[in-house]
């Protein structure tokens, strides 16, 4: 039995509402600007190019997803933007001013759990505020408010080891947001979570992003996650890392779980799939034919 090919719309077709939304986004000021960013690693066998001549403008309150196969340099890119690594060439501008080194204007949520285990949940959220010289009472009040925003007000006195993985990441988001960063960098923040929790976390993140004035740069390798969250999707390819395509996500907002099967969503996901799994790539994934079963005992 053959399945009739699914007729999907072109992913570039946008409804007038969606097109108008992207027009409005383009009118907004640029928060983060990458200019000809380049990174090469010096190894024993010469230099290895992680990515080259990468330029990108991120507008205020835009949600950008960077997606690509492993080894395309997307994690290196976000670490350079965060100031945790140096770039080999190019510059990073925040509100038009070049930056170097880590700073509270670029909040970061990591893939692993990076809450400070010796601090309670509330003290974790207070950390950045203390570092910026806020008084204890103001830091305390702000921390409670941010915990309420991520829905963990009840857990302010708990220690990180008492929380589930999803809750830890919500605290990490609250901790990064408490500094009121110009841009929130998220490096596969839900990658270590199970599928159900990840789905919930995407919903939480959407709700938080709506409530808070923040721009988000989000790294993922999960196609659905990118389609569900992003305004624009930057698709990167590997060897050397480069931008393959910048996609304006045609799925209308507000997003909901039902849209996972809408034609726009499927078309977009299909296109991402094509880009990331380039033709001919799957050839070497076939295993050699070695049979250990008796004849007539094959599975379909």
């Amino acid at each position, binding site marked *: 039995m053959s399945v009739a090919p699914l007729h999907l719309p072109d992913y570039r077709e946008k409804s007038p509402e969606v097109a108008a939304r992207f027009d409005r986004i383009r009118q907004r000021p640029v928060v983060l600007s990458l200019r000809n960013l380049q990174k090469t690693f010096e190894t024993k066998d010469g230099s290895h190019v992680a990515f080259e001549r990468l330029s990108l403008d991120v507008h205020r309150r835009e949600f950008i997803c960077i997606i690509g196969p492993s080894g395309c340099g997307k994690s290196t890119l976000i670490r350079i933007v*965060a*100031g*945790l690594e140096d770039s080999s060439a190019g510059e990073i501008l925040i509100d038009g001013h070049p930056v170097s080194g*880590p*700073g*509270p204007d*670029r*909040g*970061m949520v*990591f893939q*692993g759990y*990076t809450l*400070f*285990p*010796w*601090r309670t949940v509330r003290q974790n959220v207070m*950390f*950045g505020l*203390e*570092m*910026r010289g806020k008084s204890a009472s103001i830091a305390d009040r702000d921390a409670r408010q941010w915990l309420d925003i991520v829905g963990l007000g009840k857990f302010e006195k708990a*220690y*990180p*080891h*008492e929380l589930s993985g999803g809750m830890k990441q919500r605290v*990490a988001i609250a*901790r*990064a947001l408490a*500094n009121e960063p110009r841009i929130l*960098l998220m490096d596969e923040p839900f990658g270590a979570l199970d599928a159900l929790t990840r789905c919930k976390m995407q919903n939480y993140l959407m709700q938080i992003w709506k409530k808070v004035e923040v721009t988000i740069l989000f790294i993922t390798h999960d196609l659905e996650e990118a389609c569900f969250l992003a305004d624009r999707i930057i698709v990167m390819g590997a060897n050397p890392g480069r931008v393959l395509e910048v996609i304006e996500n045609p799925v209308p907002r507000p997003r909901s779980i039902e849209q996972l099967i809408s034609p726009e969503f499927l078309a977009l996901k299909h296109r991402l799939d094509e880009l990331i799994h380039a033709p001919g790539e799957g050839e070497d994934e076939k295993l050699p034919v070695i049979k250990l079963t008796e004849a007539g005992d094959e599975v379909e």
Partner: protein
Amino acid sequence: MGLRDRLGLRHELPHRRRLTLIVLSFALPVALWSVISYVPWIWHPRVRITDPGSVDYFTVGMDMDRSVFAQEAANAAKAGLKAPQGYRVNPLYLPPPHKVAAAFVTAFTTPPRLPSEPWLAESLGHSIATIFWGFVISSVIGLPLGILCGTYRFFAKLQEPFIEFFRYLPAPAFGALCVAILGIDDAPKIAIIVIGTFFQQVLVIANTVRKIEPALIEAAETLGARGWRLLVRVVIPATVAEIYTDMRILLGWAWTYLIVAEVVGTMSGITFFITLQARYRQFDNVYAAIGMIGVIGLTTDMILAWLATVLFPWKRRRVSARRRPKPAPGYAPNSPDRFATIAPAPAVPVPADNPFQAEA
């Protein structure tokens, strides 16, 4: 439960069995000691003479080798003279458990034979003071230096190669030098403990600090932490619980240098007490004094371990990670109605013109 299951690699033991094993770990050696002491035909290589008989160099209460006694008894029998009498005993250096147990109390209450000799309490106090000052002086320098070496490569490269070399020099080798420089009283003893502890301390603590999760430092940097605040607010709190554990272990090592330190210069402390008691052939007191070092060490360590749970609440685990999770209440895998908790689908009102309905 089979034996294989009981000895299972890293299996968590039930609370009761754990307690039994803890008691056994002390009871087994004591039981062995009791058997040797109280069962007269096991070991007991000496004979205590109750009647010298015809042997002229035997006196009442004298201990003799069993072979010598048997030889003399045989000689007496052959010559038709009166045979010596006696009973088998263990050598003086192995007193039975009850005597040693009693000595734990009597050693404190027995006054010294000479006015110049110390009471046991004084000896112990002297030893504890020596350890305390040696460890404090070592830590005051070693702790900050270890943290600096663990945090900054600059300090690590500047200090560690020399310390690595120095820690191979045995502390007792510095005894004569310490006496020459610091005199014969307590100063050289404290110096020996410092030399024995300090170099290990710097390396061990530097190593612990180096194991900090780098992502924690990166997270702190993206939150605006810089320079010394990164050290004080992140590196130190992140490693303080592990440093505390290191210090507990190092304190144990300091005790091992105590005996060596106390024979440097004028002999003092618990070592002096033990030497005196051995000279007076009060071996029960010797064992009691050695045992007390163990009791003091173990008690200190247990207090410090308890203190750690108060000081570092985030290290307290609510449940043991290896304990099997309890099933949800009501979960019975083999009950026939195990799916009963899944609610049946709600009845959907069927419209009158339902085509599927019409077919049926």
